[in-house]
């Protein structure tokens, strides 16, 4: 069963086509990623799904409601986390959440309890929440930003670059929140231009460019489309044919060979595998057990960035 159905949707801004005859579906409970560079049409698409923009043509359904015919019904079941931190900086977190809660029809004890739940869920310190939002760190603001979209317990969520501008620690904390939302059974559309985020979180990813979806599938399916392989590159102090044979015999290794390293005037071992993380310890221990020193190790994995480059000839960040 689909929670979002986008059918032949086009959005034009005068002469510019931001979304070009795009169709896609998101299944109930799925965490669906929209990956693409700035200007690919991700935000325009999510704005149309949330009812902020009307499509020039095509139809959009959220749950069982059409955004064009029943916008209020769609808004009731949709929670939107905007890319920017959209909070009143002169209010504290509780006041912000109370405001948005009342917009969604919550009031009294129900609203109070829901705010308390969300402050716990997003791991926000209740004491700190009494200060004005303007005094919060970026990570705290992001978490309040997400909590504001969860007040009415939406069935479907649109997260627009929810971790933009965050340090790795705060980014991972937010990833955990997003993963627990998925565990609660929510259908989530996540727009991002960070491939690690899409790979880590998404069940399926649509890669967008110039208003169109140019690739769609699970992260692993998309990676397989690239005719590149995951490689472990080891620089030892010496090599031998027998060492290469021993490495080849390790389970999971598809191939192993040496290439000359002209700068260092020694040979480098390349190990081809599908699971570089899993077999790396075996490869290193095999080499060390022959009395050979390991000078350096490098993992080269195929990523969604490689997929995007293969499909468009450009980087995601261009």
């Amino acid at each position, binding site marked *: 069963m689909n929670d979002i159905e986008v059918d032949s949707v086009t959005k034009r801004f005068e002469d510019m086509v931001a979304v070009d005859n795009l169709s896609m579906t998101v299944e109930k409970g799925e965490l669906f990623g929209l990956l693409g560079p700035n200007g690919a049409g991700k935000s325009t698409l999510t704005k149309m799904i949330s009812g*902020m923009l009307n499509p020039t043509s095509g139809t959009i359904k959220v749950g069982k409601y059409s955004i064009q015919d029943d916008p*209020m019904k769609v808004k009731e079941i*949709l929670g939107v986390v905007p890319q920017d931190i959209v*909070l009143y900086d*002169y*209010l504290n977190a509780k006041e912000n959440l109370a*405001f948005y809660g009342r*917009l969604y029809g919550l009031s009294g004890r129900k609203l109070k309890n829901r705010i308390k739940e969300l402050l716990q869920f997003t791991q926000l310190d209740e004491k700190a929440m009494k200060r004005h939002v303007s005094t919060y760190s970026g990570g705290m603001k992001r978490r309040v930003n997400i909590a504001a979209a969860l007040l009415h317990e939406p069935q479907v969520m649109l997260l627009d670059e929810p971790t933009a501008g965050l340090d790795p620690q705060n980014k991972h904390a937010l990833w955990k929140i997003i993963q627990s939302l998925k565990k609660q059974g929510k259908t989530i559309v996540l727009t991002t231009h960070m491939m690690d985020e899409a790979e880590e979180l998404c069940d399926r990813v649509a890669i967008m460019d110039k208003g169109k979806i140019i690739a769609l599938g699970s992260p692993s399916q998309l990676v397989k489309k690239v005719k590149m392989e995951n490689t472990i590159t080891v620089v030892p102090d010496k090599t031998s044919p027998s060492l290469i044979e021993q490495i080849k015999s390790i389970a999971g290794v598809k191939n192993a060979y040496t290439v000359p390293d002209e700068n260092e005037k020694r040979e480098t071992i390349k190990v081809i595998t599908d699971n570089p993380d899993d077999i790396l310890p075996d490869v290193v221990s095999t080499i060390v057990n022959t009395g050979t020193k390991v000078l350096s190790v490098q993992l080269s994995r195929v990523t969604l960035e490689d997929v995007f480059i293969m499909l468009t000839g450009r980087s995601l960040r261009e």
Partner: protein
Amino acid sequence: MNLKRSINQVAAIAKTDFLGVLRNKTAIFFTLLFPLFFIVIIGFTFGQSGEEGLSRIAVGVVNLDGELVAVNVTDSFNSTIGDLFVQALESVNFTVTGYGEYGDRDTNGTAAYAISRGDIDAILVIPANFTETLSFQYTNNLGVPVATKSHLEIYVDPTDTTGALITQQSVLGFISGFIKEYQEIALKQAPPDLKAYIEVVADPLTISISEADVTGAELQWIDYMVPGTLGLVLIWSGLNHASMTIATERTKGTFQRMVIAPVSPTVVLLGKLISALAIVYMSAFIMLLSGVLLFQVNLYWNIPVIVLGIFLGALSAIGIGLIISSLAKNEEAANSISVIISVPLQFFIGAFFPLSIMPEAAQDFGEALPFTKLVNAMQDVMTRNLPFDAVIPEMVYLAVSGLILFLVGTIAYRISMRRL
């Protein structure tokens, strides 16, 4: 259920908007304290004096010269010299407004009403026998002119002692010059044998100077200025706040978040309107209280009329603000447009300076502003203690302009929803 929910939403939007002013020092200054700052500065500078030094004195002329008068048992309607007198008055830098009658301070359209609301500085009543007297039409049985007096009445505004003195001296100076010129002409035209006689006869005017019936109380300019500053409240608290509210929310993105919630545009608009009205009333309360405490003004508190007047005036201010807020590209643009409009506008509403000292085009512009109507109505009600009936024309004007401007503001707001 839906109504309850909508009311809850309106209340949430209004409260958040209101807190946005109360918790922002800059907003507090420009929305609430700036008008107060103005009243304090101008009140202490000019409050105890008046309009001395004005180059153009506004005189209301009640010219009765064309009216029926019996001359040697014959009816006469001649107004030739009275008209010449008015023309001469106009030519020497007085601003002259004609009135049909002296009237009283409660009757709109009369000279007494105009002086009581500060529209004119003095009233000059030209008597019905002015032309007949000055052209020696009163004669004895032998056809010889008899000494007859024509009585000119001058009324000045007693609420402004210094200003009244200047006005009085200026008008008397003009009359004196007019009589001198008249005597010279009369003597030139007189037959040689009657010259000595005419010299006595040709002093035909008596002049009385009275205080116009402005109000029973001894009033000063500040007594008019304090209720007049309610016009400023509309500009700074109504227009200015409303012009910023949606533009600021759009720039910060909070408006978009409201739009993606199940909230109708009407609910958002109502929330903003209630907040703006609350700010206007709060500002009005602060202004009036400050006026009473700082300047000990003597005002009449017809609360229902004051509340109604402010509400109707606020509709215009909020309507203009909505137009600015909806059409401006962002917060900065809205702020700039609002300041460009508000700063000059406050000088055209008659709150500090009477419109009569301004050029005619500026007077017409000022008179057309709803804020001027509110100033006039509030001065009538609060300073002159006039009843509601006396300000019905102003209230109707405020209601009509308020509804039109608020409607246009609503349309602009709806249009702005398309470009989120």
